[in-house]
């Protein structure tokens, strides 16, 4: 996987750009790989994705370190732990490699961090839908893939604040619950919640496996109609439950486009260009970048997508 044909290697021997993903082989990053490859074809650049066989910061460090020795023009990365990468990214920069990151607000030592959206806004958006669905009343809980997953914690944090400000009738009854991004674990935790809070009205998920697991528990309890389930997921994983109404709505962004956006930024930087507020990457959702306050290298697109059962059918990942 990832090895380009001999022809493309010679044709573009000058420029190689590598995207380091959290883990290889899952649908999300396969989709990103599609975007990365398509971008390479379009621009005639040697592009590929690399990643570990499980989600671990140390494997990403190892991969980036190995890549530095290969001297690509750019490394773009979706870090498992932004902080843990800071030192290896410094080394990359020192070798003149352009570095771009994604889903890593606050990361240091990259030229640009590109976010599909503002995490706080995204969290608020989910909560707005959840609050509307629950008519602003009742108990709810939030799931995160891991208590160590930074973006998940930002989403649920912003959502919680938004709820307190805008839906005073709602109540979060537990601190964020950890699902380890495992569908079965999410299912079991959801069952516990249903037993502990018979009147629960809402679930917010963060990891892709959260809402399918929660939905399974809801279906078994026959509470599809009584409980609102919303959160980040991908259409392929959620479609089955969207159809029965056990998931009400999912939120996501297209990783293929995010992959392209990272590479486009790297290309602009490598040709001496600059990324500024308002820059148009020519990619859907990234037509007018915003700069995130409080950071000097974070730019935001407007690429979040929300989908109900109908809308989700349009996506094939």
């Amino acid at each position, binding site marked *: 996987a990832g090895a380009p044909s001999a022809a493309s290697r010679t044709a573009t021997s000058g420029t190689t750009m590598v995207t380091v993903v959290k883990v290889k082989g899952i649908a999300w990053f396969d989709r990103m790989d599609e975007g990365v490859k398509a971008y390479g074809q379009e621009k005639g650049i040697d592009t590929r994705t690399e990643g570990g*066989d499980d989600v*671990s910061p*140390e494997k990403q460090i*190892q991969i980036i370190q190995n890549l530095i*020795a290969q001297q690509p023009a750019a490394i773009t990365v979706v870090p498992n732990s*932004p902080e843990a990468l800071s*030192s290896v990214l410094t080394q990359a920069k020192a070798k003149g490699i352009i570095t771009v990151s994604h889903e890593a607000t606050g990361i240091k030592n990259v030229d640009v961090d590109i976010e599909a959206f503002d995490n706080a806004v995204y969290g608020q958006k989910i909560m707005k839908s959840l609050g509307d669905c629950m008519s602003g009343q009742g108990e709810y809980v939030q799931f995160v893939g*891991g*208590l160590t997953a930074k973006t998940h914690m930002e989403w649920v944090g912003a959502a919680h604040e938004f709820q307190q400000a805008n839906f005073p009738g709602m109540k979060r009854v537990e601190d964020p619950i950890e699902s380890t991004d495992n569908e079965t674990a999410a299912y079991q935790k959801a069952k516990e919640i249903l037993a502990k809070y018979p009147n629960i009205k809402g679930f917010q998920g963060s990891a892709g496996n959260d809402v399918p697991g929660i939905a399974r528990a809801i279906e078994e309890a026959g509470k599809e109609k009584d409980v609102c389930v919303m959160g980040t997921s991908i259409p392929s994983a959620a479609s089955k439950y969207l159809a029965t109404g056990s998931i009400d709505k999912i939120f996501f962004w297209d990783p293929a486009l995010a992959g392209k956006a990272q590479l486009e930024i790297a290309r602009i930087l490598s040709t001496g260009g600059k990324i500024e507020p308002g820059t148009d990457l020519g990619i859907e959702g990234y037509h007018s970048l915003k700069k995130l306050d409080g950071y000097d290298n974070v730019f935001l697109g407007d690429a979040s997508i929300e989908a109900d059962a109908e809308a989700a059918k349009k996506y094939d990942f």
Partner: protein
Amino acid sequence: MLILLIIAFALFSVLNPAVFLSTTNLQNIALAAPEIGVISLAMMLAMLTGGIDLSLVSIANLSAITMSTLFTTLAAGDPGQAEQMAPLIVLAGLAVGLAGGLVNGLLVSGLGITPILATLGTMQIYNGIAVAWTGGKTLSGSPSALTNLGLSTVGGIPILFGLFAVVAIAFGVLISRTPLGLRIQLLGANPTAARYSGIANRRILLSTYVLTGLLGGIAGILFIARNPTASADYGSSYVLLVIVIAVLGGTNPKGGFASVFGVVLATLTLQIVSSGFTAMRLSAYEYAIAQGLILLAVMTYDEVRRRWTKPVRWRPARRASS
């Protein structure tokens, strides 16, 4: 093991010399090896007594988190002073490692809990403490002395690698040249006979796990020196990897036999294969397959060779040596 190391090195040097033999790549290998190597040595030590220590990575993280928190707290008051306190901060990290090892040791030797269960439990406890402590966030901040240590090289060799070499030599001496080391080996070979030979099994076991905890603490220092950050879930993929390295390096999982030198070589070999695979643009999955094949091939070769050579000279590779 040495042969394998040379084969691996030669193979990748021929296949992709430009990348594989670059200084950067070699330095990277030398930079990545120490943290894995130190944990592997700790695992080797636990396995030498016939046990296992699954909590090592959690201990290392807890130690790194302690150091980072201490530094950040001190630096909030007076950054200059915090830098000066670096040695004390490092000592605190080591102390956390020792404490973690002590708890393991007490559970294993005092209560007599099977090591795999005791350390599986403490792995979760230490990891849980780290999660609760950091709220799951990755902490950044560490004394610049430590960070510099991670970045600097002497004659092209990273200092961290030198540190690893020192630790390895110290452990080689400990195992083969001290009474404690001899007792650890004997205890692993036959606990009953050890008892009847006047070896204080409990105390030795306790010392062993305290030592593995200490190595965990050292690994925590290496973590934070390589990256000035600390988090609860760094290195979780190391837990099984270091067992692979330990056995590849000639440690008998039933106890009694291990070789520090073998473990060092095994660490380097796997690093070389890993970076060689990336240089060859092979995927992580293919690397996982290769790692398994290497393990099986080396062990089968060892076994077959052992059966064909003089039984009385049997297992020279597994005898403890530095």
